[in-house]
């Protein structure tokens, strides 16, 4: 497994762990005691907005730790530049991510159209963001492994 594959895998696992951890934290600390809180759109907005800096910060910290461990084990620096192949793979990953998020957006709007509560729409949007990010990383991993 080359460094780019390792980097992508670490990003993927980190994102899944952070997302799952955050969802469980919010669910156990706020939703379990008072399920009606989901109808408070201010709460939903805050929960989504707080997730972004937490995810970015955690990704940076884990990336630094991973770089140090990788340097100790393999004595190789992680690649810092993106060449033409990396850019092409990234474009393909963005395309996959875009289509999945678009599908999620349509589902979210569909939930409103059939009369579901707004928080269901927000949850679908949040999860489609998550799934699109996961598929984006999986696409990168696929192209790094298989080539094209």
């Amino acid at each position, binding site marked *: 497994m*080359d460094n780019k594959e390792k980097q992508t895998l670490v990003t993927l696992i980190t994102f899944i762990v952070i997302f799952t951890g955050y969802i469980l934290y919010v669910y156990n600390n706020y939703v379990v005691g008072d399920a009606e809180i989901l109808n408070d759109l201010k709460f939903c907005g805050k929960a989504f907005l707080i997730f972004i800096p937490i995810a970015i910060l955690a990704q940076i910290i884990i990336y630094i730790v991973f770089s140090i461990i990788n340097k100790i084990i393999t004595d190789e620096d992680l690649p810092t530049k993106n060449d*033409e192949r990396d850019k092409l793979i990234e474009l393909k990953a963005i395309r996959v991510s875009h289509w999945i998020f678009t599908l999620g957006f349509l589902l979210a709007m569909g939930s409103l159209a059939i009369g579901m509560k707004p928080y269901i729409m927000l949850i679908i949007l949040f999860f489609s963001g998550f799934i699109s990010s996961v598929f984006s990383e999986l696409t990168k991993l696929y192209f790094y492994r298989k080539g094209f």
Partner: protein
Amino acid sequence: MSKPVFKIDKCIITNNIRTLRFHANEMTQQELADRTGVTRQTIVAIENGKYFPSLELAFRIAGIFNVPLDNVFSFRLEGDPVKD
């Protein structure tokens, strides 16, 4: 009136980068990568036929070995006889 059917044969692109590196004083993949401005992984992928480089990178590679482009990469259509 029936529509014309265009059949495009699958193309096969091969390369001699490994051989050229050998003749260039056993140049390493990392050295070639540094001189062409890409990562070593990209050179590995090109050598293994997993990635076809841009025309610019192809010319850069040929320039480093000081050979014409068709000495580095060869192209044929599926079904064509293999040239020696």
